[in-house]
């Protein structure tokens, strides 16, 4: 067995992570929009997918905080709830912004609505259902926002535009939202589902989340091949693959760091371990 090497890990406070997630995601989506409109192309749509990853990390952290208390229904339920709230919020935000004539503020409107709705659902869960999880309101607020930002980011990655009509035409009518729904849900719920246990570590879980987010970006890239054309789609697939590969290797190292021993089964060459 090889000598255990020091692997880069991290530990981030939830409050800090929330700010990174919200700011990173919103700025990322607008940056993607600005880059696309300034250059007049749709090549930079992949930046929207990168922005979604910030939301995913925030959501994955909220899942691991809430589910650590045990909610009795398994981790996937909370991820589906997050994306369900996100879908409604995205449609509402974009549509209302368009109706009010401030199309660009759709992202902010969707986010604000989802945060309020998430807080209310958390309040219901604690008061009516009697969960008594102290961070339930906070966790569901985060999760709802994360679901919204993830859907918005990947919607932008597929449609290349923030206009309501474009997103409905390219993402909803084509049915690609179902792919975003499940892939985005996986990126938010899978990390904790895969890593839960007494030795669950924040860095391992979140790195896993970004890794799954990379795979989701590959999926949206394939969708973008049809809606945005070859160039924008290929860029997205390559970026998604790069993210997946980098974080997969990192995750593999972290898994080895946290394992008590690593032994080969002979299926992989010893150099791969």
């Amino acid at each position: 067995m090889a000598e255990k090497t020091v692997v880069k890990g991290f530990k981030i406070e939830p409050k800090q992570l929330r700010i990174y997630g919200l700011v990173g995601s919103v700025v990322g989506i607008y940056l993607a929009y600005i880059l696309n409109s300034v250059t007049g192309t749709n090549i930079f749509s992949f930046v929207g997918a990168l922005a979604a990853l910030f939301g995913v990390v925030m959501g994955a952290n909220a899942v691991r905080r809430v589910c650590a208390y045990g909610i009795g229904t398994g981790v996937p339920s909370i991820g589906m709830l997050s994306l369900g709230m996100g879908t409604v919020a995205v449609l509402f935000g974009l549509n209302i912004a368009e109706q009010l004539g401030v199309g660009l503020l759709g992202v902010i409107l969707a986010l604000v609505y989802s945060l309020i709705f998430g807080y209310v659902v958390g309040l219901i869960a604690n008061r009516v259902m009697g969960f008594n999880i102290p961070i339930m309101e906070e966790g569901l607020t985060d999760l709802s926002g994360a679901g919204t930002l993830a859907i918005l980011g990947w919607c932008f990655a597929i449609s290349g535009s923030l206009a309501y009509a474009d997103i409905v035409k390219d993402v909803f009518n084509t049915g690609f939202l179902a792919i975003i729904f499940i892939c985005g849900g996986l990126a938010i719920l899978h990390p904790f589902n895969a890593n839960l246990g007494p030795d669950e570590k924040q860095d391992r879980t979140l790195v896993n989340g970004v890794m799954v987010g990379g795979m989701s970006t590959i999926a949206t890239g394939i969708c973008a091949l049809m809606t945005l054309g070859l160039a924008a789609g290929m860029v997205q697939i390559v970026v998604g693959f790069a993210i997946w590969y980098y974080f997969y290797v990192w995750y593999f190292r972290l898994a080895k760091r946290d394992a008590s021993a690593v032994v080969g089964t002979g299926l992989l060459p010893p150099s791969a371990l």
Partner: protein
Amino acid sequence: MTFDINTIIYILEIIVGGLLVGVGVHFVPVGGAPAAMAQATGIGTGTVQLAAGSGLTGLLSAGLMMSVTDNLWAILATGAVGAMIMIDATMLAGSWIYAYAVGAPFASAKVNYDPITGFSQPPYVAPGTVGQGIPTVCFVSGTIGAAMGGLGGAMIYYPLVQINGNPAMSAIFAIGIFFVDAVLASWNIQGTIEGFHDPKFKKWPNAFKSCLVATAILAVVAVLITPIGGV
């Protein structure tokens, strides 16, 4: 948008649909992971998956009916029947596996006598488990639950299509509402339930209240969405 009496009817329809989904989840025999290992009564998967499965099937069949007719009752009935067929097929195929592959006798651990057939249950419950398989009462209960879920799904979908005239978007929006209600209801039953004979079923008013508040917030938002941009 124009706010008139129709808007209020749409809001009410969506809320009733959400409530039907939330209460319907309590009827479906959800066993979760223990049931997948034949150590608990019910279907061996989580509430959300079952609710999503039956709800989406109901939604699809309702959408199909909606493409031929505008009659509300026909659409609602199709949604309910679609969901019932889906859950019944799942329970039937699951029962074959429990009976012929796992070899477990079907027994409920929550009641001494099956309320429908009157058969004695405790002798057949294996020690260390909380029942196995899907007894008659669970099957009947699951069918009722699926009917309510499908009805709810169709009831959410119908007004949405009337409002925004876009079936694809309405379906996605309905799925969003559906997931919120199904997850709230499944939290209320703590993940597993056998059906209407389970003591946990008495907790349904909690889910009713929660789904009422949550769906009301979603319904008010849903009617504000108008078709724009030539969609």
